């Protein structure tokens, strides 16, 4: 123990170096700087870095967060944060590349356009990420109040039902005063928290005893109620909000978590049958569901109308080819009209695949696969069922959401409007997905290193313990 370290310990700082994270952040920074230089050079016609302020601020923030992780001594997963940094960095690069006037908003008296706005969202999301990763030392606040969380989620849903504004044919946006957001993003986290608590508690019952109908083994009837409720909520979202993507995401995450908790394939089969049956009924009843399916099967049946968006996306893939056109060399807009409607949100994957090509698209999928691998690893090494299910669920909301929108963009599945986590433009999406990564990081913490003899406990840890004590007392009072 060196004198310097003792001095640090003396003021309550117990650093834990994260060399692998630092190394990966350097690699990510190099890649992003290269991308930025490529874009600026293409535009300038000579080697240039352009207005690198946005990128420099972003990278500075990422390294600052890394330093914060080191100083607070948390022993968390070291790969997740660089992966998120790469994804959000790609997002910043794409937003810088796309026509800036796609979004204009005034924040704190300054009129901002696409890329600076996205940086504001990313920075906010990363602050939330860092705060959750550093300060969440207990899962009690998530574990104990699962029905409170469920109630909050349903309340949020009802608020959207009643007061939501319609954007792009779907009732998504909730506006409170100057703040506007899409609660469906937050709802997915609440859903995972509730499901993890509920399934961890009732796992034994759900997987052991069962009701038999013929050869089909069903869960005990009382425990099917949440399943039915979940199914009903998903259908209600489709009917009332017209938000097919969110409904699909919720239901798939639910089924996956149910399977992980019980390892009963029959539940998954039953769930999928219910889903297909529900989908068939909706197909018959609602034109917007029919449109989605028909356009998926043959977009050229209405090339100037409903099929327009997906056809334009296909042309973009064709233009991109294997290596892509290169950043800046694609054609995301013709004249002043974006070539693909919603290119910065729902179809950002097509923008990426055009300019970075098949290899860029595959690399992006690889980044999400990396998140899945880290998330599942965190789940597999978790201390108990709740944490394992929570980590699994948080991972799934990111990677399944990415799969749904990429699949929709690629015509692998019908298109449903939903954001590409950490890439698409949008405050709610970036903030919530930042929070998800932050929670995953917190869950991955292997605990503080035992203090060396003769030093005082970590200040931060002490604060955390106090907060946990307070939470426990409030909880007792309520129950």
């Amino acid at each position, binding site marked *: 123990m060196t004198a310097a370290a003792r001095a640090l310990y003396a003021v309550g700082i117990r650093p834990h170096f994260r060399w692998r994270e630092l190394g990966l952040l350097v690699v990510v920074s190099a890649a992003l700087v290269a991308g930025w230089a490529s874009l600026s050079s293409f535009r300038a016609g000579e080697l240039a870095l352009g207005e690198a302020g946005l990128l420099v601020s972003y990278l500075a923030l990422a390294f600052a967060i890394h330093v914060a992780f080191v100083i607070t001594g948390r022993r968390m997963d070291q790969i997740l944060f660089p992966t998120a940094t790469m994804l959000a960095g790609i997002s910043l690069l794409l937003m810088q590349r796309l026509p800036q006037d796609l979004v204009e908003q005034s924040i704190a008296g300054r009129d901002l356009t696409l890329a600076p706005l996205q940086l504001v969202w990313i920075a906010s999301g990363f602050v939330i990420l860092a705060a959750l990763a550093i300060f969440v030392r207990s899962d009690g606040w998530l574990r104990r109040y699962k029905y409170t969380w469920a109630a909050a989620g349903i309340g949020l849903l009802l608020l959207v039902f009643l007061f939501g504004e319609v954007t792009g044919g779907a009732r998504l946006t909730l506006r409170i005063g100057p703040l506007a957001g899409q609660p469906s993003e937050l709802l997915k986290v609440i859903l995972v928290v509730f499901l993890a608590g509920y399934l961890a508690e009732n796992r034994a019952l759900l997987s052991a005893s069962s009701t038999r109908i013929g050869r089909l083994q069903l869960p005990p009837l009382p425990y099917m109620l949440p399943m039915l409720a979940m199914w009903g909520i998903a259908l209600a979202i489709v009917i009332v909000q017209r938000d097919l993507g969110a409904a699909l995401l919720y239901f798939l995450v639910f089924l996956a978590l149910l399977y992980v908790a019980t390892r009963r394939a029959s539940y998954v089969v039953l769930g999928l049958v219910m889903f297909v049956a529900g989908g068939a009924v909706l197909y018959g009843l609602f034109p917007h569901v029919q449109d989605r399916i028909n356009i998926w099967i043959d977009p050229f049946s209405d090339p100037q109308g409903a099929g327009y968006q997906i056809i334009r996306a296909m042309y973009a893939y064709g233009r991109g*080819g294997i290596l892509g056109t290169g950043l800046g060399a694609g054609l995301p807009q013709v004249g002043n009209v974006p070539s693909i409607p919603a290119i910065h949100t729902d179809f950002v994957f097509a923008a990426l695949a055009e300019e970075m090509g098949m290899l860029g698209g595959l690399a992006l999928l690889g980044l999400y696969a990396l998140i899945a691998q880290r998330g599942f690893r965190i789940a597999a090494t978790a201390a108990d069922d709740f944490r394992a299910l929570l980590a*699994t669920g948080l991972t799934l909301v990111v990677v399944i959401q990415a799969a749904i929108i990429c699949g929709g963009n690629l015509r692998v599945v019908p298109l449903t409007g939903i954001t590409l986590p950490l890439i698409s433009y949008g405050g709610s999406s970036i903030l919530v997905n930042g929070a998800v990564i932050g929670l995953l990081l917190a869950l991955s913490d292997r605990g503080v290193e035992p203090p060396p003899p003769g030093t005082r406990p970590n200040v931060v840890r002490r604060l955390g313990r106090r907060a946990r004590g307070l939470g426990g007392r409030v909880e007792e009072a309520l129950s």
Partner: protein
Amino acid sequence: MTASRVARLRVRIPLLRPKRPRPTGPPRVAGSLLRLSLALAIGYGALAAGLVHWQVLEASRLTNDPLNPLVLAAARNAPRGSIFDSTGKVLAHNVGGSGEPLREYPYFVAAPVVGYRSTIFGTAGLENTYDAQLTGLVSLRPGDELLRKFRDQPYNPSDLMTSLDVELQRVGVDLLGDQRGAVVAIEPTTGRVLALVSSPTFNPNRIVDPQNGRRYVADLREREDSPLLNRSTQGLYVPGSVFKIVTAIAGLGSGAIAATTKFEDQPEEYETGFLVQGFRIRDFPRRVQLDHPLNFYEATEVSSNIWFAHAGLETGPDALSDYASRLGFGLRIPFELPTSPSQVTGGDGPLSGFRDEVELANAAYGQGEVLVTPLQMALVASTVANDGLLMRPKLVDELRATDGSVTTLGPSGWSQVISPFDAQIISDAMQLAVEGPFGRDLAGSAKVPGIPTAGKSGTAELGGDAAPHSWFIGFAPADAPQIAVAVIVEGGGAGAQRAVPMAGDLMTHYLTGN
């Protein structure tokens, strides 16, 4: 929670996991994660497959899709390659520097081949077929696709060096004048198309004119003689006697007939007609060779319908259809311009498509249900000229990209239709049909002065009072062919009246420059 209390679980491959007594209670979460990962891997695999599908397998088709606005937008801003004829004359190029460049076509006679590129009406002809190469969005070589990303100029437009001889094309247009018809000239040994005339035609400069283009095209579309139709590749005509060459190819190729084959009843059938199931086939009246059964050479020279009806019946429906399809009948001939499929029969009868022997016998001398494109008949002549080897027809010899790279599109054989021996027999017969003492009456005017010339004239009866189509197919020099032609004049009367002298003038111009 401290690290010591955490049970470190690891996901393992189930097969390698040693068997342990099944623990009581619910399965461990960690175990389920492996299967969940597998499901996710399948999902992400499908996405990766989707990417590969669109960006590799379908990329070229999507990039060339005429509806693709990205292609259109890029084409508007980017330079566009020029189109040249085989002697270096410019057939199409961009003019006007500021703003959107306009396309100019110095030789409107080449319109059926070159087509046009209009901002209003899109593209046609070679301007359409090679649109992507002319704009430089794609190259024929996949390696270029990869390299292009590293160039400072992402577009690499190519010039098209075509095989067209625009002077020969002009001669063809002048010869047809205001008559409706078509001329196709091919280099038999390579399949390079030398001339492709369709009359009447249009002026592409007036189509691309931004001010008056719409009205001009509206007028063209209303005209009853369809100037926008490319008769040489898409016009379907009754061939008449020129089809006898196809019958000869099928008969000799299948061995059903030989050069010496004679039909003993023939001299008297000239008087009575050849009765096939109650249908009487007659020869055109002639003064010569009425006294003895004809062999193949004589029958070709005097163009005896009766002999070829006999030969067709001997050959049979299967072999006739088979050899015709080897020549390209029944399919859209792969070519750089749109083609219509030629047919030997209407196709719904029991005898390989023929209804009965009457239809077969009639088809054998080019009537019945036979319908052909001029391009198809030029390929027939070209096959005989090239020792029975049919070359794939083609228009573009070379693509010269702006970056200096050159892509050569060399000749390629399509099918060996008949043996060189049989091809020589037919070639000799066709030479007699032009130069022989009796053939001279019918097709002598196709003769290129001083050069052995082979050919076959035709008079296609249309039924009713309609004037027959005048046809000629042939090639020269007969011993070392350099040019094979097909000429049709709609309603031009007997072959000798219109098509035959035109073909003679055309071949003479090409071979001697006069």
